[in-house]
């Protein structure tokens, strides 16, 4: 009996969380579609800062990771492709593995760990210190001021970072290929571009937009889920990371299945 009680309580908690998240998304959609206040500067500043933090400040680290991933993918491929006489499929590896899948996923992971946690912590602290209440008291809609700029900022940053990641991953792959199979940049790029379809690029960008939106929604939701105490902030931040990662893989699976099947 205890097992069923525990299972029931767990299930109801999950359901309550899910329904709260759905209600939260409806609130955001309603705010997005409602009349904007006359002043734009306040929200635009938040948007600009978010794009700067999530996108621009991350360029150096993303470039390093992308170079490494590109190099590792080609090294592993060059271990096995020659066994089947398939050295010419290096371009396919770059497109299928990196541009379609690893690029969007790894970039999203990086943003979750760096920016998602920062957002949850920031909003959680604002709730505890009555700053969200202060916004409401001034007639400043916390959804419009805190959430919407971050939603657009994350989506824009992740789309840009995807493109940036792909460029450096291709470069990383080329650097390995140049020394191992002694190929030129022109040959390498030709192989990649022969495999790359416009749809691959568009799907990669679409994934970036979807992942960015999901991360922003989940991180801000968890921030607002803090009620009273500072000890809730790290708890909700951990939940934000786990929820975002799960949502990411679910969304990736759905997009991949819909498009490629």
């Amino acid at each position, binding site marked *: 009996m205890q097992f069923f009680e525990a299972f029931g309580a767990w299930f109801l908690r999950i359901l309550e969380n899910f329904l709260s998240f759905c209600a939260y998304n409806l609130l955001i959609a309603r705010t997005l579609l409602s*009349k904007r206040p*006359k*002043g734009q500067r*306040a929200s635009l500043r938040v948007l600009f800062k978010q794009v700067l933090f999530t996108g621009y400040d991350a360029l150096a680290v993303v470039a390093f990771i992308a170079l490494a991933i590109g190099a590792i993918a080609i090294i592993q491929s060059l271990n096995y492709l020659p066994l089947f006489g398939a050295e010419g499929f290096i371009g396919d590896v770059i497109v299928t593995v990196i541009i379609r899948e690893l690029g969007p996923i790894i970039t999203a992971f990086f943003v979750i760990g760096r920016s998602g946690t920062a957002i949850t912590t920031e909003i959680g602290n604002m709730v505890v210190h009555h*700053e969200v*209440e202060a916004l409401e008291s*001034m*007639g400043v809609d916390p959804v419009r001021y805190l959430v919407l700029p971050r939603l657009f900022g994350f989506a824009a940053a992740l789309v840009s970072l995807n493109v940036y990641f792909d460029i450096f991953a291709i470069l990383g792959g080329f650097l390995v290929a140049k020394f191992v199979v002694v190929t030129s940049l022109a040959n390498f790029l030709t192989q990649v571009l022969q495999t790359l379809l416009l749809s691959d690029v568009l799907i990669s960008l679409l994934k970036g937009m979807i992942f960015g939106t999901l991360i922003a929604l989940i991180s801000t939701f968890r921030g607002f889920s803090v009620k009273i105490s500072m000890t809730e902030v790290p708890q909700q931040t951990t939940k934000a990371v786990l929820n975002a990662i799960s949502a990411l893989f679910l969304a990736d699976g759905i997009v991949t299945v819909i498009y490629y099947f």
Partner: protein
Amino acid sequence: MSDNIIEVRNVSYGHSSNRVLDNISMDIPKGKLVMITGLSGCGKTTLLKIIAGLIEPDQGSVSIDGVDIFMVPRLKLFEMRRKMAFMFQDGALLSNLSIFDNIALPLRYHYNLPQDEIEKRVLSLLDSYGLKSLQSELPGSLSMIQRKLAGVARALVMEPTMIFADEPIGFMDVVAREQLSNMLIQMRDDPEVTLIAVGHNIEFIKMYADYIGILHDQRLFAYGEKNEILKSRDPVLQRILSIIIDETEMLAESVLGVMRGDINEQH
């Protein structure tokens, strides 16, 4: 026609086993200074936040200008709040914005004003409260009193007609207390501005309030015009007032005692 701008009806808050406020009703006339007092922890701040629409009561309603603020659409309530201001006890400034940006925030959000107009209004307020030199600082580097003054400046920047103040002159030094007292008196004298404040300072209440409300034992024990309340011969009411005075003096003494102790140790 009623002169009441705010009507509170049967407001209760908290679970039945842990009630904070129980069945409170009151009318707040336009253009008056209403002070709500009571012992520490009696629910003054909670009541103030309910009247301001920041907390939803478990039962009851609050109407401002005939509009039930808990039934109105969310966005409509945000619009109504353009002319309402809440002064938090600790300022409640946004920690990642400078003092200037904190005060300018409601102007930037609600209006499309040019930058020099925003600067003019904000700098004028900063100057009034002696905060001009701190305009680029973050709230974390300010003292408690400075944060509170900045919070007051932010509340006043939109020229509100309804002000909710949580302990506006509580635990302030003499200069800051005088600044804020003058501000409250100026607002009180404006017939278009309605002020609702909670606090312990009985001397201030006696001198400046138009209406007094006394919270005790989760209920609004007494509410009415100042003279009516202060001249009441109800022994229970007089006892409650004297306890509030004693509590305030005890707290002030304990703070002073700690300060004296610190000073003696240093010397």
